[in-house]
Protein backbone atom coordinates (compact mmCIF):
# COMPACT_ATOMS: atom_id res chain seq x y z
CA UNK A 1 0.00 0.00 0.00
CA UNK A 2 1.17 3.50 -0.77
CA UNK A 3 0.85 6.04 2.03
CA UNK A 4 -0.65 9.32 0.94
CA UNK A 5 0.59 12.18 3.08
CA UNK A 6 -0.64 15.75 2.87
CA UNK A 7 -1.21 18.70 5.16
CA UNK A 8 -3.98 16.94 7.08
CA UNK A 9 -1.96 13.99 8.26
CA UNK A 10 1.64 15.07 8.05
CA UNK A 11 1.87 15.59 11.81
CA UNK A 12 1.50 11.83 12.14
CA UNK A 13 4.28 11.24 9.65
CA UNK A 14 6.90 13.70 10.95
CA UNK A 15 9.52 10.98 11.41
CA UNK A 16 8.78 9.47 8.05
CA UNK A 17 8.94 12.82 6.27
CA UNK A 18 12.23 13.66 7.94
CA UNK A 19 13.55 10.34 6.75
CA UNK A 20 12.24 11.09 3.26
CA UNK A 21 13.98 14.48 3.05
CA UNK A 22 17.24 12.87 4.12
CA UNK A 23 16.79 10.03 1.66
CA UNK A 24 16.03 12.48 -1.14
CA UNK A 25 19.19 14.40 -0.30
CA UNK A 26 21.16 11.17 -0.47
CA UNK A 27 19.62 10.08 -3.78
CA UNK A 28 19.35 13.37 -5.64
CA UNK A 29 22.36 15.25 -4.32
CA UNK A 30 24.88 12.55 -3.47
CA UNK A 31 24.01 9.90 -6.06
CA UNK A 32 22.54 11.86 -8.95
CA UNK A 33 24.71 14.89 -8.34
CA UNK A 34 22.05 17.62 -8.35
CA UNK A 35 24.36 19.97 -6.49
CA UNK A 36 21.92 22.86 -6.47
CA UNK A 37 19.82 20.98 -3.95
CA UNK A 38 22.72 20.50 -1.58
CA UNK A 39 21.94 21.65 1.98
CA UNK A 40 24.09 21.64 5.04
CA UNK A 41 21.27 20.06 7.00
CA UNK A 42 21.47 17.01 4.72
CA UNK A 43 17.75 17.39 4.02
CA UNK A 44 16.42 18.04 0.54
CA UNK A 45 13.63 20.53 1.20
CA UNK A 46 12.88 23.00 -1.56
CA UNK A 47 10.34 25.73 -2.26
CA UNK A 48 7.75 23.19 -3.44
CA UNK A 49 7.72 21.21 -0.19
CA UNK A 50 4.86 23.27 1.22
CA UNK A 51 1.52 22.39 2.74
CA UNK A 52 0.16 22.06 -0.79
CA UNK A 53 2.39 19.10 -1.56
CA UNK A 54 1.08 15.54 -1.34
CA UNK A 55 3.64 12.78 -0.85
CA UNK A 56 3.23 9.21 -1.97
CA UNK A 57 5.47 6.88 -0.05
CA UNK A 58 5.93 3.15 -0.11
CA UNK A 59 6.81 2.08 3.42
CA UNK A 60 7.64 -1.29 4.81
CA UNK A 61 6.29 -2.40 8.17
CA UNK A 62 9.23 -0.94 10.03
CA UNK A 63 8.52 2.44 8.49
CA UNK A 64 11.48 2.36 6.11
CA UNK A 65 10.90 4.25 2.89
CA UNK A 66 11.25 2.13 -0.24
CA UNK A 67 10.23 4.74 -2.78
CA UNK A 68 8.27 7.90 -3.19
CA UNK A 69 7.03 10.79 -5.26
CA UNK A 70 5.65 14.27 -4.72
CA UNK A 71 2.53 15.75 -6.30
CA UNK A 72 1.81 19.48 -6.25
CA UNK A 73 -1.39 21.11 -7.52
CA UNK A 74 -0.72 23.55 -10.36
CA UNK A 75 -2.77 26.19 -8.57
CA UNK A 76 0.22 26.44 -6.24
CA UNK A 77 3.68 27.26 -7.59
CA UNK A 78 5.12 24.32 -9.51
CA UNK A 79 8.50 23.57 -11.05
CA UNK A 80 7.28 23.90 -14.62
CA UNK A 81 5.73 27.29 -13.85
CA UNK A 82 8.83 28.66 -12.19
CA UNK A 83 12.31 27.15 -12.42
CA UNK A 84 11.63 25.14 -15.60
CA UNK A 85 9.40 27.76 -17.19
CA UNK A 86 11.82 28.48 -20.03
CA UNK A 87 11.78 24.83 -21.05
CA UNK A 88 8.03 24.77 -21.73
CA UNK A 89 8.31 26.36 -25.15
CA UNK A 90 5.66 24.32 -26.99
CA UNK A 91 2.91 25.17 -24.55
CA UNK A 92 2.84 26.77 -21.14
CA UNK A 93 2.66 24.62 -18.02
CA UNK A 94 -0.96 23.99 -16.97
CA UNK A 95 -2.42 26.04 -14.17
CA UNK A 96 -5.79 24.86 -12.89
CA UNK A 97 -7.32 22.84 -10.10
CA UNK A 98 -7.60 19.65 -12.18
CA UNK A 99 -3.95 19.62 -13.13
CA UNK A 100 -1.18 18.43 -10.81
CA UNK A 101 2.55 18.16 -11.19
CA UNK A 102 4.77 15.24 -10.21
CA UNK A 103 8.37 15.58 -9.08
CA UNK A 104 11.11 13.93 -6.97
CA UNK A 105 10.34 10.39 -7.99
CA UNK A 106 12.76 8.01 -6.32
CA UNK A 107 13.18 4.34 -5.52
CA UNK A 108 15.53 3.49 -2.69
CA UNK A 109 15.81 -0.17 -3.58
CA UNK A 110 15.11 -1.24 -7.14
CA UNK A 111 15.01 -4.91 -6.28
CA UNK A 112 12.13 -4.57 -3.84
CA UNK A 113 8.94 -6.29 -4.80
CA UNK A 114 5.75 -6.60 -2.82
CA UNK A 115 4.48 -9.99 -1.71
CA UNK A 116 2.51 -10.15 -4.94
CA UNK A 117 5.73 -9.68 -6.91
CA UNK A 118 4.90 -6.15 -7.95
CA UNK A 119 7.87 -3.83 -8.30
CA UNK A 120 7.77 -0.76 -6.06
CA UNK A 121 7.72 1.69 -8.91
CA UNK A 122 4.59 0.08 -10.37
CA UNK A 123 2.86 0.33 -7.01
CA UNK A 124 3.81 3.97 -6.70
CA UNK A 125 2.86 4.74 -10.24
CA UNK A 126 -0.56 3.10 -10.09
CA UNK A 127 -1.15 4.46 -6.61
CA UNK A 128 -0.73 7.95 -7.95
CA UNK A 129 -2.92 7.30 -10.98
CA UNK A 130 -5.63 5.87 -8.73
CA UNK A 131 -5.42 8.83 -6.41
CA UNK A 132 -5.61 11.19 -9.39
CA UNK A 133 -8.67 9.47 -10.83
CA UNK A 134 -10.46 9.35 -7.49
CA UNK A 135 -9.74 13.04 -6.86
CA UNK A 136 -10.93 14.10 -10.29
CA UNK A 137 -7.47 15.16 -11.45
CA UNK A 138 -7.54 15.21 -15.23
CA UNK A 139 -3.91 15.80 -16.06
CA UNK A 140 -0.44 15.24 -14.67
CA UNK A 141 2.64 17.01 -15.88
CA UNK A 142 6.27 16.91 -14.98
CA UNK A 143 9.80 16.56 -16.18
CA UNK A 144 10.73 13.11 -17.51
CA UNK A 145 14.20 11.72 -18.09
CA UNK A 146 14.92 11.22 -21.78
CA UNK A 147 15.50 7.47 -21.52
CA UNK A 148 11.95 6.85 -20.32
CA UNK A 149 10.35 8.81 -23.15
CA UNK A 150 10.52 6.14 -25.91
CA UNK A 151 8.66 3.67 -23.70
CA UNK A 152 5.65 5.94 -23.65
CA UNK A 153 5.22 5.18 -27.37
CA UNK A 154 3.75 1.84 -26.49
CA UNK A 155 1.23 3.09 -23.96
CA UNK A 156 -2.13 4.19 -25.29
CA UNK A 157 -1.95 7.50 -23.48
CA UNK A 158 -2.89 10.95 -24.49
CA UNK A 159 0.45 12.63 -23.88
CA UNK A 160 2.16 15.68 -25.25
CA UNK A 161 5.47 17.40 -24.95
CA UNK A 162 5.31 20.81 -23.28
CA UNK A 163 8.82 21.55 -24.49
CA UNK A 164 11.75 19.97 -26.31
CA UNK A 165 14.26 17.60 -24.78
CA UNK A 166 16.78 19.68 -22.88
CA UNK A 167 20.23 19.00 -21.51
CA UNK A 168 20.48 19.96 -17.86
CA UNK A 169 23.35 20.01 -15.41
CA UNK A 170 26.85 21.06 -16.40
CA UNK A 171 26.80 24.00 -13.98
CA UNK A 172 27.54 23.67 -10.26
CA UNK A 173 29.56 20.55 -11.04
CA UNK A 174 26.38 18.60 -11.75
CA UNK A 175 26.19 15.56 -13.96
CA UNK A 176 24.72 16.09 -17.40
CA UNK A 177 21.29 14.64 -18.03
CA UNK A 178 18.48 14.97 -20.53
CA UNK A 179 14.76 15.20 -20.21
CA UNK A 180 11.61 16.93 -21.37
CA UNK A 181 8.51 18.45 -19.75
CA UNK A 182 5.57 16.18 -20.54
CA UNK A 183 1.82 16.29 -19.94
CA UNK A 184 -0.33 13.18 -19.61
CA UNK A 185 -4.13 13.09 -19.56
CA UNK A 186 -5.55 10.96 -16.74
CA UNK A 187 -8.95 9.33 -16.62
CA UNK A 188 -10.61 6.13 -15.46
CA UNK A 189 -10.20 4.36 -18.80
CA UNK A 190 -6.53 5.26 -18.97
CA UNK A 191 -6.04 3.79 -15.51
CA UNK A 192 -7.99 0.64 -16.35
CA UNK A 193 -6.21 0.00 -19.64
CA UNK A 194 -2.76 0.67 -18.21
CA UNK A 195 -3.42 -1.65 -15.29
CA UNK A 196 -4.40 -4.41 -17.68
CA UNK A 197 -1.40 -3.85 -19.91
CA UNK A 198 0.91 -4.08 -16.94
CA UNK A 199 -1.01 -7.08 -15.52
CA UNK A 200 -1.89 -5.25 -12.35
CA UNK A 201 -4.89 -7.11 -11.03
CA UNK A 202 -4.73 -5.62 -7.55
CA UNK A 203 -7.73 -3.44 -6.98
CA UNK A 204 -6.27 -0.64 -4.89
CA UNK A 205 -2.71 0.55 -4.55
CA UNK A 206 -3.17 3.74 -2.61
CA UNK A 207 -5.96 4.43 -0.17
CA UNK A 208 -5.75 7.98 1.19
CA UNK A 209 -6.65 6.79 4.63
CA UNK A 210 -4.49 9.31 6.39
CA UNK A 211 -6.19 12.28 4.83
CA UNK A 212 -9.59 11.82 6.48
CA UNK A 213 -10.37 14.83 8.51
CA UNK A 214 -13.56 16.32 7.20
CA UNK A 215 -15.83 14.08 9.20
CA UNK A 216 -13.76 12.33 11.77
CA UNK A 217 -11.51 15.30 12.39
CA UNK A 218 -8.81 12.78 12.88
CA UNK A 219 -6.11 11.40 10.66
CA UNK A 220 -4.54 7.96 10.88
CA UNK A 221 -0.95 7.13 11.57
CA UNK A 222 1.15 4.64 9.59
CA UNK A 223 0.43 1.78 12.01
CA UNK A 224 -3.31 2.20 11.64
CA UNK A 225 -2.86 2.22 7.86
CA UNK A 226 -1.06 -1.10 8.07
CA UNK A 227 -3.85 -2.48 10.24
CA UNK A 228 -6.26 -1.40 7.56
CA UNK A 229 -4.14 -3.24 5.03
CA UNK A 230 -4.18 -6.41 7.13
CA UNK A 231 -7.90 -6.18 7.51
CA UNK A 232 -8.35 -5.66 3.79
CA UNK A 233 -6.16 -8.67 3.04
CA UNK A 234 -8.19 -10.85 5.38
CA UNK A 235 -11.55 -9.57 4.22
CA UNK A 236 -11.34 -8.74 0.54
CA UNK A 237 -15.15 -8.84 0.36
CA UNK A 238 -15.26 -5.61 2.39
CA UNK A 239 -12.56 -3.79 0.50
CA UNK A 240 -14.84 -1.93 -1.91
CA UNK A 241 -17.11 -0.65 0.85
CA UNK A 242 -14.21 0.44 3.00
CA UNK A 243 -12.55 2.30 0.18
CA UNK A 244 -15.84 3.94 -0.66
CA UNK A 245 -16.16 5.14 2.93
CA UNK A 246 -12.57 6.31 3.08
CA UNK A 247 -13.00 8.21 -0.15
CA UNK A 248 -16.31 9.72 0.87
CA UNK A 249 -15.12 11.14 4.15
CA UNK A 250 -11.76 12.04 2.72
CA UNK A 251 -13.28 13.99 -0.11
CA UNK A 252 -13.15 17.52 1.18
CA UNK A 253 -14.17 18.87 -2.21
CA UNK A 254 -17.66 17.50 -1.83
CA UNK A 255 -18.92 17.76 1.74
CA UNK A 256 -22.44 16.96 0.54
CA UNK A 257 -21.53 13.34 -0.02
CA UNK A 258 -20.66 13.06 3.65
CA UNK A 259 -24.16 13.65 4.87
CA UNK A 260 -25.24 10.25 3.56
CA UNK A 261 -22.94 8.63 6.03
CA UNK A 262 -23.74 8.35 9.69
CA UNK A 263 -20.63 9.99 11.03
CA UNK A 264 -20.34 7.77 14.03
CA UNK A 265 -20.64 4.65 11.96
CA UNK A 266 -17.84 5.74 9.72
CA UNK A 267 -15.62 6.68 12.60
CA UNK A 268 -16.30 3.48 14.44
CA UNK A 269 -15.68 1.57 11.30
CA UNK A 270 -12.33 3.13 10.67
CA UNK A 271 -11.30 3.00 14.29
CA UNK A 272 -12.32 -0.58 14.68
CA UNK A 273 -11.67 -2.12 11.34
CA UNK A 274 -9.04 -4.36 12.82
CA UNK A 275 -11.58 -5.72 15.26
CA UNK A 276 -13.63 -8.70 14.44
CA UNK A 277 -17.09 -7.69 15.52
CA UNK A 278 -18.42 -6.58 12.17
CA UNK A 279 -16.58 -8.94 9.92
CA UNK A 280 -19.23 -11.61 9.58
CA UNK A 281 -20.27 -10.55 6.13
CA UNK A 282 -19.84 -7.87 3.51
CA UNK A 283 -20.59 -4.31 4.59
CA UNK A 284 -23.56 -3.08 2.63
CA UNK A 285 -23.58 0.48 1.48
CA UNK A 286 -26.65 1.18 -0.57
CA UNK A 287 -27.57 4.74 -1.36
CA UNK A 288 -26.42 6.19 1.86
CA UNK A 289 -25.84 5.04 5.39
CA UNK A 290 -23.44 2.29 6.17
CA UNK A 291 -25.06 -0.82 7.53
CA UNK A 292 -22.92 -3.16 9.44
CA UNK A 293 -24.34 -6.65 9.23
Amino acid sequence: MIHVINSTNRHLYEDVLEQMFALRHKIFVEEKGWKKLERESGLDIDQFDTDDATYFLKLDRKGTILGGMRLVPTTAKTQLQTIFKDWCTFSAAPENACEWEWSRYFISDKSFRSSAGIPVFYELFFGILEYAVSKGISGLSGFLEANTLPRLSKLPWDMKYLGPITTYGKTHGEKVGKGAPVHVTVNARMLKVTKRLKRMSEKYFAIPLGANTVVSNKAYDPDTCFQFLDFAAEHPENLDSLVKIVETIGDAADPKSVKYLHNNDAINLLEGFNQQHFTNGPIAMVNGPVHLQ
Partner: protein
Amino acid sequence: MFSQQAWLEITQFMGVVDKISTIDELNESLRTVLGQLGVKHLICISAFGMPAMQNRKPMFGFRDTEWVKHYRKMNYHVDDALPQYALKLRHWEDPFWWTDFVAENDLTPLQLKIFSEAHSYGLKQGVVFGIPVDVDNNDEVVEFAYASVAGDIVKSDEIENTLLTVLLAAHRTARRIHMRLFLANESKFLADPIVNFSPNIKNIDSLTPTELATLKQFVENDTYEQIAAAMGCSISNVKKHLSSAQDKLEFGSRKEMLVSLLRHHYLI
Protein backbone atom coordinates in the same frame (compact mmCIF):
# COMPACT_ATOMS: atom_id res chain seq x y z
CA MET B 1 20.52 28.90 -32.38
CA PHE B 2 17.87 28.06 -34.95
CA SER B 3 15.96 30.68 -36.86
CA GLN B 4 12.67 31.90 -35.47
CA GLN B 5 10.94 30.29 -38.43
CA ALA B 6 12.45 26.92 -37.52
CA TRP B 7 11.19 27.17 -33.93
CA LEU B 8 7.77 28.16 -35.15
CA GLU B 9 7.60 25.15 -37.45
CA ILE B 10 8.77 22.80 -34.70
CA THR B 11 6.28 24.15 -32.16
CA GLN B 12 3.50 23.87 -34.71
CA PHE B 13 4.49 20.31 -35.61
CA MET B 14 4.59 19.22 -31.95
CA GLY B 15 1.08 20.61 -31.52
CA VAL B 16 -0.45 18.57 -34.34
CA VAL B 17 1.74 15.46 -34.52
CA ASP B 18 -0.76 13.35 -32.56
CA LYS B 19 -3.49 14.12 -35.04
CA ILE B 20 -1.57 13.11 -38.16
CA SER B 21 -3.28 10.09 -39.66
CA THR B 22 -1.13 8.81 -42.53
CA ILE B 23 2.55 8.05 -42.96
CA ASP B 24 2.71 10.19 -46.10
CA GLU B 25 1.34 13.16 -44.21
CA LEU B 26 3.83 12.54 -41.41
CA ASN B 27 6.72 12.36 -43.90
CA GLU B 28 5.65 15.61 -45.55
CA SER B 29 5.39 17.43 -42.21
CA LEU B 30 8.78 16.13 -41.17
CA ARG B 31 10.27 17.26 -44.47
CA THR B 32 9.08 20.80 -43.80
CA VAL B 33 10.09 20.91 -40.14
CA LEU B 34 13.44 19.17 -40.40
CA GLY B 35 14.20 20.95 -43.68
CA GLN B 36 14.38 24.14 -41.63
CA LEU B 37 17.23 22.58 -39.68
CA GLY B 38 19.14 21.48 -42.78
CA VAL B 39 18.09 17.81 -42.67
CA LYS B 40 18.06 16.10 -46.08
CA HIS B 41 17.91 12.45 -45.15
CA LEU B 42 15.72 10.67 -42.62
CA ILE B 43 14.83 7.05 -42.08
CA CYS B 44 13.34 5.39 -39.02
CA ILE B 45 13.59 1.60 -38.85
CA SER B 46 11.74 -0.60 -36.39
CA ALA B 47 13.10 -3.91 -35.14
CA PHE B 48 11.60 -6.69 -33.06
CA GLY B 49 12.87 -9.71 -31.27
CA MET B 50 16.26 -11.07 -30.41
CA PRO B 51 19.18 -9.72 -32.42
CA ALA B 52 19.70 -12.98 -34.30
CA MET B 53 16.19 -13.07 -35.74
CA GLN B 54 15.34 -9.44 -35.96
CA ASN B 55 12.60 -8.30 -38.24
CA ARG B 56 13.44 -4.83 -39.49
CA LYS B 57 10.90 -2.57 -41.16
CA PRO B 58 11.06 1.05 -42.23
CA MET B 59 8.46 3.11 -40.35
CA PHE B 60 8.78 6.57 -41.84
CA GLY B 61 11.28 8.79 -43.57
CA PHE B 62 12.19 10.42 -46.86
CA ARG B 63 12.12 7.60 -49.37
CA ASP B 64 12.55 9.17 -52.75
CA THR B 65 15.70 11.22 -52.24
CA GLU B 66 18.64 10.89 -54.64
CA TRP B 67 20.72 9.41 -51.87
CA VAL B 68 18.20 6.68 -51.04
CA LYS B 69 17.89 5.78 -54.74
CA HIS B 70 21.64 5.56 -55.05
CA TYR B 71 21.95 3.59 -51.80
CA ARG B 72 19.40 1.08 -53.00
CA LYS B 73 20.91 0.77 -56.45
CA MET B 74 24.33 0.03 -54.98
CA ASN B 75 22.90 -2.42 -52.37
CA TYR B 76 24.75 -0.54 -49.67
CA HIS B 77 22.51 -1.98 -46.97
CA VAL B 78 24.61 -5.17 -47.11
CA ASP B 79 27.81 -3.43 -46.04
CA ASP B 80 26.73 -0.20 -44.40
CA ALA B 81 28.27 -0.01 -40.92
CA LEU B 82 25.62 2.24 -39.37
CA PRO B 83 22.63 -0.15 -39.23
CA GLN B 84 24.85 -2.99 -38.05
CA TYR B 85 26.09 -0.79 -35.25
CA ALA B 86 22.66 0.63 -34.45
CA LEU B 87 21.32 -2.89 -33.86
CA LYS B 88 23.90 -3.51 -31.16
CA LEU B 89 23.33 -0.24 -29.31
CA ARG B 90 23.64 -0.61 -25.59
CA HIS B 91 23.56 2.96 -24.36
CA TRP B 92 20.29 4.11 -25.79
CA GLU B 93 20.42 7.59 -24.41
CA ASP B 94 23.60 8.43 -26.34
CA PRO B 95 23.02 9.12 -30.02
CA PHE B 96 26.09 8.70 -32.19
CA TRP B 97 27.27 11.18 -34.79
CA TRP B 98 28.78 10.08 -38.09
CA THR B 99 32.12 11.85 -37.60
CA ASP B 100 32.63 10.29 -34.15
CA PHE B 101 31.53 6.94 -35.47
CA VAL B 102 34.02 6.98 -38.36
CA ALA B 103 36.80 8.12 -36.05
CA GLU B 104 36.14 5.50 -33.38
CA ASN B 105 35.51 2.39 -35.46
CA ASP B 106 37.64 0.31 -37.79
CA LEU B 107 35.72 0.50 -41.03
CA THR B 108 36.37 -1.38 -44.25
CA PRO B 109 37.26 0.63 -47.38
CA LEU B 110 33.75 0.06 -48.76
CA GLN B 111 32.15 1.27 -45.52
CA LEU B 112 34.28 4.42 -45.66
CA LYS B 113 33.32 4.87 -49.30
CA ILE B 114 29.64 4.90 -48.34
CA PHE B 115 30.29 7.79 -45.96
CA SER B 116 32.29 9.77 -48.50
CA GLU B 117 29.61 9.25 -51.14
CA ALA B 118 26.96 10.40 -48.69
CA HIS B 119 29.00 13.55 -48.23
CA SER B 120 28.98 14.18 -51.97
CA TYR B 121 25.17 13.89 -51.89
CA GLY B 122 25.05 16.76 -49.41
CA LEU B 123 24.91 14.65 -46.26
CA LYS B 124 27.81 16.33 -44.50
CA GLN B 125 27.01 15.16 -41.01
CA GLY B 126 24.55 12.65 -39.60
CA VAL B 127 23.34 11.26 -36.32
CA VAL B 128 21.65 8.00 -35.28
CA PHE B 129 19.18 7.83 -32.38
CA GLY B 130 18.16 4.62 -30.63
CA ILE B 131 14.53 4.39 -29.51
CA PRO B 132 13.95 1.49 -27.08
CA VAL B 133 10.19 1.03 -27.15
CA ASP B 134 9.73 -2.06 -25.07
CA VAL B 135 11.98 -3.45 -22.39
CA ASP B 136 11.15 -6.73 -20.69
CA ASN B 137 11.60 -7.56 -17.01
CA ASN B 138 15.25 -8.51 -17.49
CA ASP B 139 16.02 -5.13 -19.06
CA GLU B 140 16.33 -6.78 -22.47
CA VAL B 141 15.08 -4.58 -25.27
CA VAL B 142 12.49 -6.54 -27.25
CA GLU B 143 11.17 -3.84 -29.51
CA PHE B 144 13.12 -0.84 -30.63
CA ALA B 145 13.62 1.58 -33.45
CA TYR B 146 16.48 3.66 -34.66
CA ALA B 147 16.31 6.87 -36.62
CA SER B 148 19.09 8.03 -38.88
CA VAL B 149 19.19 11.71 -39.77
CA ALA B 150 21.68 13.47 -42.04
CA GLY B 151 22.18 16.60 -44.03
CA ASP B 152 23.79 19.97 -43.78
CA ILE B 153 23.87 19.92 -40.00
CA VAL B 154 26.53 20.62 -37.38
CA LYS B 155 26.91 18.59 -34.22
CA SER B 156 25.55 20.41 -31.18
CA ASP B 157 23.51 19.67 -28.06
CA GLU B 158 20.70 21.85 -29.28
CA ILE B 159 20.18 20.16 -32.64
CA GLU B 160 20.60 16.71 -31.08
CA ASN B 161 17.88 17.41 -28.51
CA THR B 162 15.54 19.05 -30.99
CA LEU B 163 15.88 16.23 -33.51
CA LEU B 164 15.28 13.64 -30.78
CA THR B 165 12.14 15.42 -29.57
CA VAL B 166 10.69 15.62 -33.08
CA LEU B 167 11.65 12.02 -33.86
CA LEU B 168 10.22 10.56 -30.64
CA ALA B 169 6.91 12.29 -31.29
CA ALA B 170 6.96 11.17 -34.95
CA HIS B 171 7.79 7.60 -33.94
CA ARG B 172 4.86 7.50 -31.53
CA THR B 173 2.51 8.68 -34.25
CA ALA B 174 3.96 6.33 -36.88
CA ARG B 175 3.59 3.34 -34.57
CA ARG B 176 -0.04 4.22 -33.91
CA ILE B 177 -0.75 4.62 -37.64
CA HIS B 178 0.85 1.29 -38.53
CA MET B 179 -1.13 -0.54 -35.84
CA ARG B 180 -4.37 1.05 -37.00
CA LEU B 181 -3.72 0.18 -40.64
CA PHE B 182 -3.07 -3.37 -39.64
CA LEU B 183 -6.29 -3.66 -37.67
CA ALA B 184 -8.19 -2.27 -40.63
CA ASN B 185 -6.56 -4.94 -42.82
CA GLU B 186 -5.07 -2.20 -44.92
CA SER B 187 -1.45 -2.89 -44.29
CA LYS B 188 0.73 -5.60 -42.90
CA PHE B 189 3.69 -3.36 -43.37
CA LEU B 190 4.84 -2.85 -39.83
CA ALA B 191 2.36 -4.27 -37.37
CA ASP B 192 2.81 -7.75 -38.79
CA PRO B 193 6.05 -8.42 -36.95
CA ILE B 194 4.64 -6.93 -33.75
CA VAL B 195 1.78 -9.38 -33.88
CA ASN B 196 3.59 -12.39 -35.31
CA PHE B 197 6.45 -12.00 -32.90
CA SER B 198 4.05 -13.65 -30.54
CA PRO B 199 3.68 -17.07 -32.19
CA ASN B 200 0.09 -17.58 -31.11
CA ILE B 201 -1.62 -14.78 -32.96
CA LYS B 202 -2.28 -15.69 -36.54
CA ASN B 203 -5.18 -15.51 -38.98
CA ILE B 204 -6.24 -12.26 -37.38
CA ASP B 205 -7.39 -10.95 -40.76
CA SER B 206 -9.97 -13.73 -40.96
CA LEU B 207 -11.95 -12.13 -38.12
CA THR B 208 -15.18 -10.33 -38.92
CA PRO B 209 -15.47 -6.68 -37.84
CA THR B 210 -17.84 -7.69 -35.03
CA GLU B 211 -15.46 -10.33 -33.78
CA LEU B 212 -12.62 -7.85 -33.85
CA ALA B 213 -14.68 -5.26 -31.97
CA THR B 214 -15.66 -7.89 -29.39
CA LEU B 215 -12.01 -8.88 -28.98
CA LYS B 216 -11.11 -5.25 -28.33
CA GLN B 217 -13.67 -5.03 -25.55
CA PHE B 218 -12.51 -8.43 -24.30
CA VAL B 219 -9.00 -7.03 -23.85
CA GLU B 220 -10.23 -3.94 -22.04
CA ASN B 221 -12.92 -5.31 -19.75
CA ASP B 222 -13.13 -7.75 -16.87
CA THR B 223 -16.50 -9.39 -17.29
CA TYR B 224 -18.85 -10.57 -20.01
CA GLU B 225 -21.45 -8.16 -18.64
CA GLN B 226 -19.15 -5.21 -19.24
CA ILE B 227 -18.35 -6.38 -22.77
CA ALA B 228 -22.04 -6.88 -23.55
CA ALA B 229 -22.85 -3.41 -22.23
CA ALA B 230 -20.08 -1.84 -24.29
CA MET B 231 -21.13 -3.73 -27.42
CA GLY B 232 -24.83 -3.23 -26.91
CA CYS B 233 -25.60 -6.93 -27.33
CA SER B 234 -26.40 -9.93 -25.17
CA ILE B 235 -23.91 -11.92 -23.13
CA SER B 236 -24.54 -15.05 -25.16
CA ASN B 237 -23.69 -13.13 -28.32
CA VAL B 238 -20.47 -11.93 -26.73
CA LYS B 239 -19.56 -15.51 -25.86
CA LYS B 240 -20.42 -16.64 -29.38
CA HIS B 241 -18.16 -14.02 -30.98
CA LEU B 242 -15.33 -14.78 -28.59
CA SER B 243 -15.57 -18.52 -29.23
CA SER B 244 -15.48 -17.94 -32.93
CA ALA B 245 -12.47 -15.59 -32.62
CA GLN B 246 -10.75 -18.08 -30.35
CA ASP B 247 -11.19 -20.87 -32.91
CA LYS B 248 -9.97 -18.72 -35.77
CA LEU B 249 -6.90 -17.54 -33.88
CA GLU B 250 -6.25 -21.11 -32.72
CA PHE B 251 -6.08 -20.43 -29.01
CA GLY B 252 -6.68 -23.19 -26.49
CA SER B 253 -8.47 -21.01 -23.99
CA ARG B 254 -9.82 -17.52 -23.34
CA LYS B 255 -7.03 -16.91 -20.87
CA GLU B 256 -4.34 -17.86 -23.36
CA MET B 257 -5.94 -15.55 -25.91
CA LEU B 258 -6.06 -12.68 -23.42
CA VAL B 259 -2.45 -13.09 -22.36
CA SER B 260 -1.26 -13.16 -25.96
CA LEU B 261 -3.30 -10.12 -26.93
CA LEU B 262 -2.07 -8.20 -23.90
CA ARG B 263 1.54 -9.15 -24.36
CA HIS B 264 2.04 -6.78 -27.24
CA HIS B 265 -0.47 -4.19 -26.18
CA TYR B 266 -2.40 -5.46 -29.09
CA LEU B 267 -5.90 -4.03 -29.68
CA ILE B 268 -5.52 -1.41 -26.94
